[in-house]
Each structure stands twice: as structure tokens, then as C-alpha cells.
């Protein structure tokens, strides 16, 4: 049986599934329910200085749905905690006391000056919490006041504030990064320089989810006006995976532990984050869509997969896919595949044909021996795999790898066994001579 125990920068939790700093971790009642449900840890919803902030009194969320109103993306305009600091601190203390084996991280956001940080840190330390997360990511509301993403978008500020915090507290410090920047490795490097123990990412993506076509207001609409919010949920996972992996393989940041965040909905998503270098994951939207119970599936799914792969511990998963994450220029151009359609599985919807014919390479026929049927024309197929992705039947269209010695009927060339990338390709004016 796989051991899901997690030790993230010295913070221990029975599994790598933490709840991210957000409404689910806003108060004692919720967090106790989360721990009862089996979550390994929580990052308590961001605390600030009193007087506490206020939230809008209208809707806080906008949404993007897939088929059958499956929630694919959620955007929010909620700010940090809107409860007094003392109450939050007392509740954190209560919960940590009763659940000593769970990770209790406290998210913080105060103005970008040294004094407020020095003021709040001892108070947090007194709760017995296991660590801190500095919220440099929130892209809406707080950023207008010089906090959140306003800090996260300036590497110098990240480094400066992180240093203040590290100088003041003995607690592990995780710096939460915003994706609303051009290159995620710069803020990550700044955090590292400032002495951060880890980074967590991604925070939400600045977004407008939709516009009401009757009132012409962006959603969520507050008295006929909307402001941009932070986007999260399954839709942002690909963005998050890339940013996590970029930090994990960058020479300057690869030593930095990462808490992976962004659209983790199932055990599979979590495993993917871990393989790309995350030390654990944080979850919010999935819990806000289905409730705390989903952690049971995450735990059982990850265990089963690790058992099947004969992986004993979480550490053995972390970074497992990183050696295979490379730049385009290193991809093997001699790896040649062709789409092939399993005629027994094909239900003849013709979507592969429509997209290949209209938008790609005219490499699929719409009839076989005069009957409705769909078949790949190898001589036209560039192996883009668009057909695979639009096919509604799992595994009906697959990519067949041509073996060395076979002829690619599209180019008429024999498939080579040797690796050959853009770096050595004759069309590359900057190619290096093949060895």
C-alpha cells in the first residue's frame, strides 16, 4: 500500500492534498469539516490587518460551463478574510490544537511595508501554525491597494518582503505567485533570493468570464457593473502545470520546493502536478464545486496508481516527468506517426473528417467502398492528431508510430532510426553539424 505521507519543507501532513487559501478555509467550522473529511492540510484564508476588509454584497463568482453545466472555470471577486484578525487567530489555534497531525498554514497579506509584517507575524506564530504563505498573487481588488498581485508582479518587492518575513519568523515561508506575469521564473527566483522555503502557484488568472447580453455588464454583475476577477478551476490547470514545470526545471529555481495549485480536481491532476515537480497540491475549486468529500477519491486514486506503478512514497513521484519536459528544438523530428481509425469502435460521426477536411490536411476520407466511413490517408496525414482530440470515442483514433525502415508515404522518405531535431535539421540556418 502506497504511503501518501507528505513532508513539504518540514511541514508534515498525512497526504499531499491541502485546501488552498480561499473561502473553504475561511473559518473554524469549515476547516474542521475539511479535516474530518480527510484533507491533509489547509492554507487558512488570507489574513490582513484590522480593520478587516469588506466584500461586495452581490455575487462574487462568474463561471464557465461545459456540457450539462459541468463547471470548467470559476472566477471570483472575493477579497481576503472579512473577519477580525483576533477571531481568525483564535480559531486557527483551536483547530491546530485539535488536529495536530494536519498541516496548518496561514496565508497573509498586509501592506508592502516592513512594520505591518513585523506586527502580524508574532501573532500568527502564537497560534501554533506550521507555516506561512505570503499572498502575492491575488489579482483583483487587493492589487488596487498595492497588495497581492501588485507585489507578485515586481520581483524586487517579492524578494524584499520575503526577506522581512524570514528575518522575523522561524516558520517556513511559502511565497504564492501570480500567473499574471510574462515569465514565472523571475518571481520564483526573487522568492528564492529573499529566502523563501518554497513557492506555491498558480494564484488565479485575471479574467472576465462572461458578459450579460441584456444588461451589457461583465459577470458577476454588481449593480450593473463588473470588475475583473481571478480565474481558477479545471480550465487553468494547463497554465498552472506549465508554470510549475518551468520553475522546477529552471537552473536558477530548481531547488525551490513547489506547492502546486490550479484546477486540481481529481487524483490524476494531483499526480500530474507532482510528476512535474510539485511537492504537494492545493485544491479549491473542486471542493467548491463538489464539497470536501472529493478528497476520498483523490486519496484512493493516487494510492491505487502508486501501487500499480510500485511507487512507495510521494517523494518518488515528485519530478518524475521533469526529465521528459524539454524545449521544442529538442523534439525528435524523426519520430513519425500516422493516425489510424479503429473501424470497430468508429461510430461514424464524421467529426474527424469535418475538422481534417475543413481545418487541416485533407487526410481523412468520408467513405469506404462507397459507404459512409472514415479512414486516414497516410500519404496526407501529418500526424497532427486533431482527429484524435475531436473524436468522441476514447481510443477509436490512435497514433501509430512508424518503425525505422518504413516509408512515410507523405514524404516518400524512409523513417530513420537516429534521433534528429531542429538543431541538426538542414532547414535550420543555425544548425550544428550532425556528429
Amino acid at each position, binding site marked *: 500500500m502506497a504511503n501518501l505521507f507528505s513532508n513539504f519543507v518540514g511541514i508534515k501532513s498525512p497526504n499531499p492534498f491541502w485546501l488552498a487559501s480561499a473561502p473553504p478555509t475561511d473559518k473554524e467550522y469549515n476547516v474542521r469539516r475539511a479535516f474530518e473529511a480527510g484533507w491533509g492540510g489547509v492554507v487558512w484564508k488570507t489574513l490582513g490587518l484590522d480593520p478587516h476588509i469588506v466584500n461586495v454584497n452581490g455575487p462574487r463568482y462568474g463561471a464557465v460551463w461545459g456540457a450539462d453545466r459541468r463547471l470548467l472555470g470559476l472566477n471570483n471577486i472575493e477579497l481576503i478574510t472579512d473577519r477580525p484578525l483576533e477571531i481568525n487567530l483564535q480559531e486557527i489555534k483551536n483547530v491546530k490544537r485539535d488536529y495536530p497531525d494536519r498541516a496548518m498554514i496561514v496565508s497573509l497579506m498586509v501592506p508592502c511595508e516592513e512594520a505591518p509584517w513585523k506586527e502580524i507575524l508574532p501573532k500568527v506564530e502564537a497560534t501554533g501554525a506550521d507555516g506561512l504563505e505570503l499572498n502575492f498573487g491575488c489579482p483583483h481588488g487587493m492589487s488596487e491597494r498595492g497588495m497581492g498581485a501588485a507585489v507578485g508582479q515586481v520581483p524586487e518587492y517579492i524578494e524584499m518582503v520575503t526577506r522581512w518575513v524570514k528575518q522575523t519568523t522561524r516558520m517556513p515561508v511559502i511565497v504564492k505567485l501570480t500567473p499574471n506575469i510574462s515569465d514565472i521564473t523571475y518571481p520564483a527566483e526573487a522568492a528564492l533570493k529573499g529566502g523563501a522555503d518554497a513557492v506555491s502557484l498558480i494564484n488565479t488568472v485575471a479574467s472576465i468570464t462572461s458578459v450579460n447580453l441584456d444588461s451589457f455588464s461583465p459577470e458577476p454583475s454588481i449593480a450593473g457593473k463588473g470588475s475583473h476577477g481571478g480565474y481558477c478551476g479545471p480550465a487553468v490547470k494547463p497554465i498552472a502545470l506549465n508554470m510549475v514545470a518551468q520553475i522546477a526545471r529552471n537552473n536558477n529555481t530548481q531547488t525551490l520546493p513547489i506547492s502546486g495549485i490550479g484546477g486540481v480536481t481529481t487524483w490524476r491532476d494531483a499526480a500530474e502536478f507532482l510528476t512535474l515537480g510539485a511537492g504537494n497540491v492545493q485544491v479549491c475549486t473542486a471542493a467548491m464545486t463538489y464539497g470536501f468529500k472529493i478528497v476520498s477519491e483523490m486519496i484512493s486514486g493516487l494510492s491505487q496508481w502508486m501501487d500499480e506503478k510500485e511507487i512507495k512514497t510521494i517523494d518518488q513521484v515528485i519530478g518524475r516527468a521533469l526529465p521528459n519536459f524539454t524545449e521544442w528544438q529538442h523534439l525528435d523530428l524523426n519520430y513519425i506517426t500516422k493516425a489510424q481509425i479503429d473501424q470497430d469502435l468508429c*461510430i461514424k460521426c464524421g467529426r474527424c473528417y469535418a475538422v481534417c477536411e475543413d481545418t487541416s490536411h485533407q487526410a481523412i476520407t*468520408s467513405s469506404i467502398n462507397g459507404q459512409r466511413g472514415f479512414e486516414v490517408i497516410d500519404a496526407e496525414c501529418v500526424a497532427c492528431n486533431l482527429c484524435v482530440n475531436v473524436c468522441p470515442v476514447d481510443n477509436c483514433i490512435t497514433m501509430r508510430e512508424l518503425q525505422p525502415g518504413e516509408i512515410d508515404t507523405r514524404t516518400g522518405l524512409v523513417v530513420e532510426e537516429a534521433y534528429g531535431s531542429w538543431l541538426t535539421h538542414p532547414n535550420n540556418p543555425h544548425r550544428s553539424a550532425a556528429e
Partner: protein
Amino acid sequence: MTNDVTTPGIVAARIESDSYVENFDDVHKPLNSHEAFVAADRCYFCYDAPCVVACPTEIDIPLFIRQISTGTPKEAAKTIFAQNILGGMCARVCPTETLCEEACVREAAEGKPVEIGKLQRYATDKIMEEDVHPFQRGKDTGKKVAVVGAGPAGLACAHRLSLHGHKIDLFEARDKLGGLNEYGIAAYKTVNNFAEREVRWLLKIGGITPKLGMKLGKNLQLDDLQEKYDAVFLAIGLGGVNELSLEDENVFGVLNAVNFISELRQASELKAIPIGRNVVVVGGGMTAVDAAVQSKLLGAENVTIVYRRGLDQMSASVKEREHATSSGVRILTNLLPKKIIAKDGKLEEIVFAYAKSLNGKLEAGSEEVSLKSDQIFKAIGQTCDEIDNKINVPSQKVTTIEGGRIGDQNIWAGGDCSSEGEDLTVTAVAQGRDAAEDINRFLNHL
């Protein structure tokens, strides 16, 4: 109440008054908006979609379903009506399980097609509830066309001709328009006078003048029509009914299923319709099912459909048959009607012989089975009334060429009286529409 299901003979009011309302309510409840969105989401928007190919009127099904899923059901309805002006009725009565839904790739994928029929009803109801007619009549051409018969084919033809700006006189032998939609379909498929409302809605296009009580060969002559009108469209349906050809066939209690269904549809009070305790329906099509199920719903104790061939050869679809059996109707197969037994002019029993197939021909075997019956409904097919000796009537139906034209005369034909296609509402609509297009080309010398 004095009668119940066990009361002998043919009597009315076998069930409680409230039960009639319940029994004859919509057999398939319409989708609400949520259900429609869920159902619409399942459509794959296929290339050259097989459902469209399978639809006799070739409605652009993927497009109208996508229009539903994007929240524009009235645009969806327009997509439907552009091909099939009786899309509302077809959504209710089409055997979708043998047409569009059978062809749906989801049927191949998981045995559960997209609910095309129900989605079509959802969309068409949206426009019809608002009583909005989505089309405008074309500029008057000064041409006049006689449409004979106001069933699905006649109505579809008249509407399309009017769209092109021609004037139409719509002749109907009965005292209501609608044909089989009004007279020949089970009540629970078209509740709340839908057939009548649909005709009223269709006529909003204008340019169509209904003339009721006009029967071809009686007070309407083909010669006259050909002379007075620029073109004539015949959609007179099938007036005759096939006989069992048994002795005592005219005894009290033996009826044509179509007459029973028509009577039921026109009844002001279902409670007043007498029904037997033991009812036998002879036949294997949708009319047989409609008659049998409605007999059961009226309170008959035992209802049996008897068909001469095997189950798989019944023209009633699997879904129709399941509807019958789940309503408590028994289906017996491979039985040939042999003898009607009556006593004092009153039906008592019907005897069937087990059928044997010899070189594809059915023959009565020696073994027999007898069914107690107070009432027999004959549903073994209909035949064409003799129209006019001017028209080539080699078999039982009018033979037409492409576009529904009869020879080189200014006569077209469509619907059940035509030799082409299946006898389905949707086929009749397609033929009426296509004949109208052909007539339009003819009138414009195109």
C-alpha cells in the same frame, strides 16, 4: 358507476371519469428547458449527419440542436419548419426510433440516441406557444392551385405554394382540416387539440382558402379542377380499408380500426365511447397499436393484437410494440383470421389458424386458437379510393414521377395515396413540400 372492466359486452364508462383524463394525457411528456439542454448537449454535430439523411424531410437536425443548446430555441424551430412545416406534429408522431434516432451515432455508440424527437418538440412548441408564424407569403403570382385533401401532404403543399405567392384552394372531404393528424392518430400523441391548433397556425401564412365537405368524385371533379386551376395536387389519402374476407364480417362488434380512432379523436366525451370487455385488434402496424392501446385506456379488460407474421415483421416499431405491451396489450403472432363466430347477430369469438410460411406465402395450418371477443378492430391496411379513370391507377395507389407529378398532366399527387415512400406523416409532408416546389417550377416555366 355501474360499469367496470369486467362488464360484458360493448359498454361505455368502464373506468372512473378522472381516469380518462389521466389515461389520455401526453404519452411522452415534453422536455423542460433543463432537460432540453442536457439532451442537446449530447449531440455530436456530425458531419453529413446520418440523422438528417434518415429524415424524410431532411431537417438539419445538428443545426437545430445546436441552436437549442445555445439558447435560441426559436431559431431552432425555424430551422425545423423551413424543411417541415408540420415539424410540431412530426415531433409527436414520427417513429423516430426507425428514422433519425435509429441513425444517430449515439445509438451506435451506446444504444441511446440523442432524443431528437423530443428536442424537436421542445423547439417547435416554443414558437407555437407564442402563436407566431415564422414565414411570410411571397408576392402574389396570380396563379391558382387546387389542393385536394387537407392532411399532412395537402397542408405541406399548400403552405409551400403560398410561400411562393400562389393562391390555394384547399379542398377537404371531411368537416375539419388535418387529415389523419386530426382523425387517425392516437389521442395521447396529440393532446389539447394540437392537430387543430397546428392547422390554424399553419394557415396564418395566408393565401390558402379551405373548402370543407368537398369530396373528389362526388361534389368535386378532377376535370373541372384541371380546367379552373393552373395545377392540381391530390393528397386524398387512403379512403378504403382492407377486409378480412370472412363470413359474418359485418356482424355487430366488428369495426375498422381507423373509424374507431377517428371517433375517439372527435368525441366530446371519452366516457361516452363504448368499448368491449374483450377486444381483438387484427393487424401489425401503428394503427393496430393505436387502436389496441386506446381500447385498453378506455377500460377494456383484455386487449389482444393478432398479427399474421412474426414480431420482427410488424410495421409497428419495437418502441410502439413496447408501448402496447407495457399498456397491458397482448401481442400474438403468426396467426391468420379464419372464422368469426357470432350468436344472434352478435360477435362472440374469433378463430385464428396458426400460419405456415410456404415459399414466402402464408398458409393456414391445421392448428387453431380461438379468442373470446366482443369487439374486433380491423387494422390490416388501407386502400385508395378510386379517383378518376383519367389517372393511371395500375395498383392500389397513384403512380407518380419525381416531384409527385402524374404523367405530363397538370396533376401532382402525394401522401398516403401516392405509391412512393412509406405511409408516414413525415413522408407525406416531404411529398407535399416537394410537389409544391415542382408545381412552382412548372408555373414559373422554370
